[in-house]
């Protein structure tokens, strides 16, 4: 099993912290994992993205050129990464903020109203968790339960209320998928 994942959105949508959670959960599930942030010259309001690899074999490079899965949180990210997705790959789209649809027909597209769901349960900032919950439900890379258990470890400063909200967001993402 090898999954190369790119998560991308606006700065502030939690794509980097979401990627770290995914890598951590993969580690807890006994996988080989790497997390690699885009550390280039990014601009305010531009896209933030990170690459995560979850694999049963050792990971050669943490750089994901052709991802197996894309978690797309905003409109510019779709334009930027759509063509890089592997043929037959999985695209999870935050339809609250992405109005266009991919032109490609050789990929699997899952539409999740991530930001809307997060807002409904209490905080739009949990949209990243909704996306990850959907991802965990759809693939074998990481277990949904492990994702939830990892929240407290990865976000050590989060209070109980925030932890519960994020767990709920992961569950909601799983249900929506």
């Amino acid at each position: 099993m090898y999954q190369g994942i790119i998560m991308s959105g606006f700065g502030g949508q939690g794509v980097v912290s979401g990627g770290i959670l995914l890598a951590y959960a993969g580690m807890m599930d006994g996988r080989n994992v790497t997390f690699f942030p885009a550390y280039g010259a990014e601009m305010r309001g531009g896209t933030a993205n990170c690459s995560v690899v979850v694999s049963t074999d050792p990971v050669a490079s943490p750089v994901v050129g052709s991802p197996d899965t894309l978690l797309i949180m905003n409109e510019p990210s779709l334009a930027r990464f759509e063509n890089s997705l592997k043929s037959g790959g999985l695209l999870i789209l935050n339809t609250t903020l992405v109005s266009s649809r991919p032109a490609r027909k050789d990929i699997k597209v899952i539409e999740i109203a991530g930001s809307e769901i997060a807002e409904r349960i209490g905080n739009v900032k949990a949209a990243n968790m909704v996306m990850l919950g959907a991802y965990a439900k759809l693939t074998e890379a990481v277990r949904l339960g492990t994702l939830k258990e990892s929240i407290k470890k990865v976000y050590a400063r989060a209070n109980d209320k925030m932890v519960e909200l994020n767990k709920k967001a992961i569950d909601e993402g799983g249900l929506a998928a």
Partner: protein
Amino acid sequence: MSERILMKGNEALAEGAVRAGCRFFAGYPITPQNEIPEYMSWRLPETGGTFLQAESEVSAINMLFGAAAVGRRVMTSSSSPGISLKQEGISYCASAELPIFYANIVRGGPGLGNIAPSQGDYFQSTRGGGHGDYRVFVMAPKSVDEMANFPRICYDIAFKYRIPAMVLADGILGQMMEPVTFDFDPVEADSLSIPDWALRGSKPEERRVVKSFDLRPGKMEEWNYRLEKKYDEIKAEEVRYEAINTDGADLILTGYGTSARICETAMAQGRKEGLKIGYIRPITLWPFPTRIFRDLAGKIGKFLVVEMSLGQYVEDVQLSINGRSEIYLHKRPAGGIPTGEEVLEVAKKVLSGDKSKFYV
């Protein structure tokens, strides 16, 4: 020993140095190594240590000269252009036999270059780097786990031989996160013995001097022979490398750092497909593991070198093999990062007799 945690390479390196007893850091910011000084700025005060953001790289390395002269474990870090600025001070430390530890988290060059991962500083690191006849001990981690655990080895070597020691890693190893286990118990910095050469204040009859020069006729030549003796001992005693599946291989893949882990994956995949591919990876770049290459030269027909630079590491492989096997080179400079599939494809071409990557 400790639990398995997820850490960023730069932070793992900094924490590894602290656990190895580092209590003084001076540095100046530059991407992609900024997490090292950032981490040290809060971590060192927790241990009673000192973090100093210097006004320049030149200043930072000279602060290190002073701090090392009192016999304690000290550190600086930078990325390529910043390390170039520090080379004068590193040369002075090498001559004065000060056991400093530093890290170069390499970015694309030459010049200001870019902030992308690169292995373009191989020559600079393995040939001393500054002026004069000297070497530094160079370790090349291939994972965040090794970023965490190599600083302790560097300090042990640095103090044993009174030599500057460094970690050479690229921006990927600095920026990526991976699971880490610290394989040693934290060192109590206060319990480390102070070497007898250190400047701690002494009675006049026990006067100690730390300096990098001797202007008397013939004395500097003697000085250099003294350094050379130490370097010969390190070359004999401190070589580290990894060699896998070399017996009966048709092709050996070789690289260091990030390139090594890519070679390792290409080898694993190739062997699944029935190809006889082996792999050698230097862990110390200086001293270079000449012998393992020399022993296999002539027995194995082909070596494929992979590096994220335009033919630097390959020269040490060439010197070791000395014309007795064919050497091929796959190179990607200043931000080009090979994939496992890419390397395996090149390996297959080389095995099938394709000469397009032939080096010597």
